[in-house]
């Protein structure tokens, strides 16, 4: 299976590719939007800041191309960390004055991305380290075989605030409930890093690869 990793200039691409190889998939670093269609599914990685990443997506011609790939060709997409945040309508990290809602994202999962402190978190930030997840009320196959209480690796200061609670498929507790995985249709996102969450993350990535659409 060919898994396209969108290389828009940020992200721990090496780590994502390694994890996929270990799962016997074939990772392909995609450096041009035109090459996206050659893959069975797509991963939007992320180690970055929302506005910078959104700008890089725009400048590279990725934004419209990803929307087309996902909407018109139903290509399954997994966003990781900032890659998940970019699935939202808006993000406030690094936003330049203008729209108070922030910088536009890809708009696949309705919602916005805000600093954890504005979401009520008073603990030390960034939220970095291993934290346990609780799955949402509707079971999602991304978490098959992964029980509540499983620890994943997080490192972030901003978090997803989904408009529709049914899009939230997992949360964690960091002083406040934090949305850590979302899904709408064949678009998934995880705030934690499955590629760096050892065996638990492998299981999750295997679930994504095994998904009926992928």
């Amino acid at each position, binding site marked *: 299976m060919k898994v396209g990793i969108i290389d828009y200039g940020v992200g721990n691409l090496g780590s994502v590719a390694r994890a996929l190889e270990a799962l016997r998939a074939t990772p392909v670093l995609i450096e041009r939007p035109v090459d996206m269609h050659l893959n069975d599914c797509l991963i939007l990685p992320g180690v970055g800041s929302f506005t910078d990443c959104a700008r890089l997506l725009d400048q590279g011609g990725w934004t419209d191309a990803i929307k087309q790939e996902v909407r018109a060709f139903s290509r399954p997409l997994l966003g990781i960390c900032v890659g998940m945040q970019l699935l939202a309508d808006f993000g406030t990290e690094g936003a330049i004055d203008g729209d108070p809602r922030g910088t536009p994202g890809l708009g696949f999962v309705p919602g916005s991305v805000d600093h954890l402190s504005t979401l009520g978190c008073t603990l030390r930030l960034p939220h970095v380290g291993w934290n346990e997840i609780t799955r949402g009320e509707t079971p999602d196959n991304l978490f098959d075989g992964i029980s509540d209480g499983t620890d994943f690796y997080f*490192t972030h200061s901003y978090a997803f605030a989904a408009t529709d609670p049914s899009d939230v498929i997992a949360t964690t507790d960091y002083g406040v409930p934090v949305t850590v995985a979302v899904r709408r249709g064949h678009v998934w996102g995880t705030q934690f890093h499955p*590629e760096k969450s050892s065996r638990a993350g492998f299981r999750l990535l295997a679930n994504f690869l095994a998904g009926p659409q992928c």
Partner: protein
Amino acid sequence: MLKVRVIPTLLWKNFGLVKGIGFDSWRRVGPVLPAIKVYNQREVDELVLVDITLCGTDETPDYESIADFGQDCFVPLAVGGGIVNIEQVRRLLRAGADKVTVNTAAYTTPSLVGDIAARFGVQCVVASIDVRCEGNGVWRTYSNAGSVPTGREVIEWARELEDRGAGEILLTSIERDGTMEGYDLPLIEAVAAAVKIPVIASGGAGNYRHMVDAVIQAGASAVAAASIFHYTEQTPAGAKAALAEAGIPIRQTFSAPALEI
């Protein structure tokens, strides 16, 4: 609940891992790759890998070696040593690093920490601070692998790095490093109280009790250690068991027989 991390520190010089005492008297402790493989298999919470040959030189990071080291590392890998610009960070992230540690260049290129944070997010920058105690609750920082006094007082420097965009502080006591006599608890406590970002205690761990103390007494978010794992029978798993015994939340390992790594 967020778990307290146990982080083996791997210092890398030329072709192998080394460990010193007080940032000096380096001893070889083995090759890098097998160490990373073993730590990965044992599911340590995170690894810090610092290339100490590069500090203060003009050489670029050894991306190829980092790519080799990252090949079998499926826990977070922080990479440091000689990083002076954000293009190096981009290449390290491509090679397999998940975040970087910056030390000397934070003094010589004040904009670097902020530049990395702006491009890759604050969570990508671990500010490494090496410190000596001057007595009376005053600690001063050193650059270039502990060899050059900067004149900076640690609290003020830690706050400055936090303001610039550091996501974590790796705080090492030069005097305690390699001694296995315990962390400098007042130092960790003072810095952890002064900043809102996580502080990783480093330098001096010799037994599990030292790690418990760093967390409970001094408020460390994570504990880094090297000698204890290189030279004694104590292990990261043992450390986590001891932390758990003391009531500290630690990560549970995930069992997935079909997904051996």
